[in-house]
């Protein structure tokens, strides 16, 4: 089977851009890993993510999922097998919560009973009472609830791979910490490979089994959180770690 996700020398340059958004990116993720991708805006982390579900196509290099080159697969089929969550959530405002979650199962032509059962199961999983929330519209939910539904929608067809693009970026810090813990709990209970993009170093270190740090389209360091903190690969990573430490010191002043 090989790795769950593997990038082999992948490069992508957008038209009119001075430098590649992804510059000879090479990495592999084992099944079940939770990989956080950290970097400042414009570093190429979102580009990297969107190449996995082929919203962007690389200029060169190869991306494989469980050993299969995705460029040889039907693009729509690839996407239906990958869960996708973005910061703006992207719930369909004219669909109810239940219909939003049911999108991929319906695209896959599941039977109605199976879809209904799955919707209820997922609503319970994300802590929203099915009877109460199934028929609501997204506008009737709080931001945190909407992002929970976004997550449930991504998990609906039980994908092996989950892509998350700053999913908690627009959510208040109390809810964010709660959602982070819930996601970690969920991840522990399932064999899913997660790529999780964030620009928050604390989030990256907390969530990731391994953390990938990107700068100017290149992977600067890809390692377990402890090693990132102990042995920063270069000045950029060091400054990131120090920024987190500085924040901590700020709080210590008040103790």
């Amino acid at each position: 089977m090989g790795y769950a996700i593997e990038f082999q020398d992948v490069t992508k340059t957008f038209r009119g851009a001075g430098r590649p958004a992804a510059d000879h990116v090479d990495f592999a993720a084992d099944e079940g890993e939770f990989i956080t991708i950290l970097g400042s805006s414009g570093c190429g982390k979102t580009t990297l993510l969107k190449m996995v579900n082929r919203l962007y196509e690389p200029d060169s290099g190869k991306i494989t999922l469980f050993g299969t080159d995705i460029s040889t697969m039907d693009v729509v089929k690839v996407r239906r097998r990958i869960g996708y969550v973005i910061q703006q959530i992207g719930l369909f405002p004219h669909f109810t919560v239940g219909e939003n979650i049911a999108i991929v199962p319906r695209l896959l032509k599941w039977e109605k009973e199976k879809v209904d059962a799955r919707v209820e199961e997922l609503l319970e999983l994300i802590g929203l009472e099915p009877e109460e929330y199934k028929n609501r519209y997204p506008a009737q939910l709080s931001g945190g609830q909407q992002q929970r539904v976004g997550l449930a929608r991504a998990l609906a067809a039980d994908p092996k791979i989950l892509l998350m693009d700053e999913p908690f970026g627009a959510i208040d810090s109390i809810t964010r910490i709660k959602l982070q813990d819930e996601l970690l709990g969920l991840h522990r209970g399932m064999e899913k490979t997660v790529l999780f993009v964030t620009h928050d170093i604390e989030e990256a270190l907390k969530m990731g089994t391994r953390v990938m740090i990107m700068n100017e389209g290149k992977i600067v360091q890809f390692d377990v959180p402890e090693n990132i903190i102990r042995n920063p690969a270069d000045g950029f990573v060091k400054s990131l770690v120090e920024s987190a430490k500085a924040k901590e010191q700020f709080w210590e002043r008040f103790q």
Partner: protein
Amino acid sequence: MWEQIIAYFEMNSERYFLMLGEHIRISLCSLAIAVVIGGLVGVFCAGRYRIQSVAVPVFGTLRIVPSLAVLLLMLPILGTGMIPAVAALALLAIPPVLMNTISGLESVPEAVLETAKGLGMEQSEIWKKVRFPLALPLILTGIKTAAVEIIASATLAAKIGAGGLGDIIFTGIGLFRTELLLIGGLSVAALSVLTGVLFGLLEKAMLRYRNI
């Protein structure tokens, strides 16, 4: 005055309903053409800013030309009767449909379209289930504006022999009979208001999901 109006209906109710029918038929035909052309051009223009910068001013200019002028300009081209009237009215009604189709389609949030794609929807499914339904309320507003404009301007169609409620009004002007002016004018006004209300209800029903 009241008696005169009643007398008119006693004598001419058949003719009145004939003209009312003509008015509605002219309006519906023009609206249908405007919706098809405005809608198609709008779908084509949405997201294509270079084409928009040409198409929108062209149709926008058409809108500035007074309805009567357009109607009369149709005379040498298409002659008299219903066809030139429908053509002229359709021309007048295209801009609101076009503009609102464009803004409706462009108002669909990029994030929603991207997730639709990311979830594995085909282009056709994205249009059918996401893009079009979300744009529809604004498109409907455009159609409502067009419909109300057409109903009002269709009155002038009588000038080029297309019939409709304008006939009653112009006869009233010619014969100096106020009751005819009232009957014609109020009928057109009622038709416009009714259309506006109907479309308003439709829009409200479609936007239910936004504010429950």
